[in-house]
């Protein structure tokens, strides 16, 4: 018996060995390096080359960063300090220019005692779009809005221009978001008027009568549509406000101002500059080009020949022309066509052109999204009896926009960066307009790198946030619907 056992099982392990770590070549850092950086002779060469380039760059720029001077009154003082600290011939960054002139980069020539107004306008903008940015999660929206409100508080207090009314208003908005989140959308709709008024100031009645135009349009639609049908209603909804704005609004605002004089100090457009200008143009452009792009995209796919031709013509014309051309048109040519004496604000003209430009691109992006939808979606909507507009609004657009998010956000980022082109029509954009203005002073003549880096960094932060937001949205929607 035991002999048999000995034959069939010549060796039986009675103690278990602990598992050995894998050989160094197969695991951890070495393995990762082998797989990712040195997997072949070509990759090895590229890796080495990459490291050499990085090393050269660091060697060149690191000292410059390390030799930073924050406290100086002029560029020559800066250089003297660098020489004194790090020896003759040392190079260093003179951030003192930013430290002294940063308000100019942010606010242009906006009156210094009114800095709180653009800050408040920006804070309110973020609060207004909060519910839209975070439609999916009310908690996220509330956190975002509270954070923005807190930052707005701190910024305004730090400016030393604590306007109690403004702070109370911001707090009230946070309260609305917490207790009646849907109501905040009313503020979102009104924001364009509020933002406009805060930035340019003047009589409070101007934005009020402007908003009144929309209310009148809505009333006209409600009155006419039951009797005259949707098309007549829509025409009335457009014509009534236009007439109101063109002929009656100014008089009404004047009369109201005469009865109840209410207003804040007006700021002229030529005081705008820097990021206040870039954001004013960029945000308004973004806000208006999206709905306009949607309408153009729908028009381009319309069965109605006239609508289709107009939309195609518009889109192809705009896409065939550089933005600069449009800006020049805005600044020079329009003057010939407008009746003499009309004072058509240059920033407004630029905003219109930038909006038209971006709308054409967004229309094409959305058209791509529309084309990607299967025909079955249209058929199902039709078969259920939804009319064209309801089908577009409830079925088609939500899906097409979702597909188009990356493209739309790219367009927005492009638009925002393109606002620097307004330098060519004499507006002080942050990148060239303001840096030139800063260098025009004797103290900071010759400060090139630091202002560009500062402005570039701010642009990068804003654009990168937009890009991250788009990725967040894409991930969210993907998770929701699959």
């Amino acid at each position, binding site marked *: 018996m035991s002999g048999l056992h000995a034959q069939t099982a010549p060796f039986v392990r009675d103690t278990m060995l602990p598992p050995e770590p894998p050989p160094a070549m197969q695991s951890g850092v070495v393995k990762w390096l082998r797989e990712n950086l040195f997997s072949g002779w070509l990759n090895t060469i590229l890796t080495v080359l990459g490291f050499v380039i990085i090393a050269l760059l660091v060697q060149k720029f690191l000292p410059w960063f390390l030799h930073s001077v924050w406290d100086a009154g002029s560029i020559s003082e800066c250089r003297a300090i660098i020489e004194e600290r790090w020896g003759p011939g040392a190079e260093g960054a003179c951030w003192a220019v930013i430290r002294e002139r940063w308000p100019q980069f942010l606010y242009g020539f906006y009156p210094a005692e009114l800095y709180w107004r653009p800050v408040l306008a920006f804070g309110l903008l973020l609060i207004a779009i909060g519910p839209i940015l975070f439609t999916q999660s009310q908690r996220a929206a509330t956190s975002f809005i509270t954070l923005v409100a807190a930052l707005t508080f701190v910024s305004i207090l730090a400016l030393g221009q604590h306007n109690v009314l403004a702070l109370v208003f911001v707090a009230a908005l946070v309260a609305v978001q917490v207790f009646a989140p849907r109501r905040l959308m009313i503020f979102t709709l009104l924001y364009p008027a509020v933002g406009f008024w805060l930035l340019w100031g003047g009589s409070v009645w101007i934005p009020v009568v402007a908003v009144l135009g929309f209310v009148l349009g809505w009333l006209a639609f409600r009155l006419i549509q039951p009797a005259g049908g949707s098309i007549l209603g829509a025409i009335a909804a457009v014509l009534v406000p236009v007439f109101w704005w063109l002929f009656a609004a100014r008089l009404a605002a004047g009369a109201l101002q005469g009865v109840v004089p209410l207003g804040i100090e007006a700021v002229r457009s030529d005081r705008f500059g820097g990021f206040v200008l870039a954001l004013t143009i960029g945000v308004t452009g973004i806000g208006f080009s999206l709905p306009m792009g949607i309408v153009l995209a729908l028009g381009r796919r319309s069965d109605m020949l006239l609508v289709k031709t107009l939309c195609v013509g518009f889109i192809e014309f705009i896409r065939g022309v550089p933005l600069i051309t449009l800006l020049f048109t805005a600044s020079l040519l329009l003057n010939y066509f407008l009746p003499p004496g009309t004072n058509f604000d240059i920033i407004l003209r630029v905003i219109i052109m930038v909006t038209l430009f971006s709308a054409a691109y967004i229309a094409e992006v959305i058209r791509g999204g529309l084309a990607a939808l299967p025909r079955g979606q249209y058929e199902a909507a039709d078969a259920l009896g939804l009319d064209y507009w309801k089908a577009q609004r409830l079925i088609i657009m939500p*899906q097409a926009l*979702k597909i188009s998010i990356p493209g739309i956000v790219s367009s927005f980022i492009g638009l925002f960066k393109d606002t620097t082109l307004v330098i060519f029509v004499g507006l002080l954009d942050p990148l060239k307009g303001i840096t030139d203005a800063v260098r025009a002073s004797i103290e900071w003549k010759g400060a090139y790198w630091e202002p560009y880096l500062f402005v570039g960094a701010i642009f990068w932060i804003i654009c990168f946030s937009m890009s991250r937001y788009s990725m967040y949205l894409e991930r969210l929607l993907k998770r929701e619907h699959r």
Partner: protein
Amino acid sequence: MSDPHAITRKIDRRHMQVSDEVAIQITSMNKWYGTFHVLRDIDMTVNRGERIVICGPSGSGKSTLIRCINRLEEHQSGQIVVDGTELSSDIKNIDKVRSEVGMVFQHFNLFPHLTIIENCTLAPIWVRKIPKKEAEETAMHFLEKVKIPEQAHKYPGQLSGGQQQRVAIARSLCMKPRIMLFDEPTSALDPEMIKEVLDTMIELAEEGMTMLCVTHEMGFAQAVANRVIFMDQGQIVEQNEPKEFFHNPQSDRTKLFLSQILGH
């Protein structure tokens, strides 16, 4: 007959009565795609309560015919009258017919960005102007009927094909249609899911719904249909009650088709 989906259950025929009232009347209807004559001189009357199965080879115009009935396709000559409303380019009439006629597609065509319950309540709320709460109750009622009430808050992408097709049926029913059109409702489904969809359709027939089904499920046709229509090359070649149709086909084309599809 070697049909993998032979209907074994007993059909309750108490409510399956054909009335004299005309639901759909098609007279000498023609349709072209460009120069291609898809539908030729179609004459067809459907009475209320009829369950009609339309079959025929691929490309014979079956889909086109039933899509003309709710004007997903436009016909060029002849007349289509649905529930007393003639289909013309008049939008009002089209909307009226579409709200009376439900349609189920081969590829379900659910709205992927809406939950199941939202899919079901969308049209009642926006077209019929029914209050949301009431629409949701109706939707749950029909989701229970198609046996997936527990999926109500999922998205279509999270459901199996068979479940999606049953949701599509419930979505149509929520509009309380008087006529249901089915365009190959089971042909995009895996075999094990076909039965659950057919069962739902049978229950619908048992309740007396007027149904037009394009399908090659001959078991379903035999069990439920009161008439089978055979189409070829844009024409109605032959129509008969199921028993006669399958056991005593008249034309050669029908015989050929039946022998192919039934695998004799």
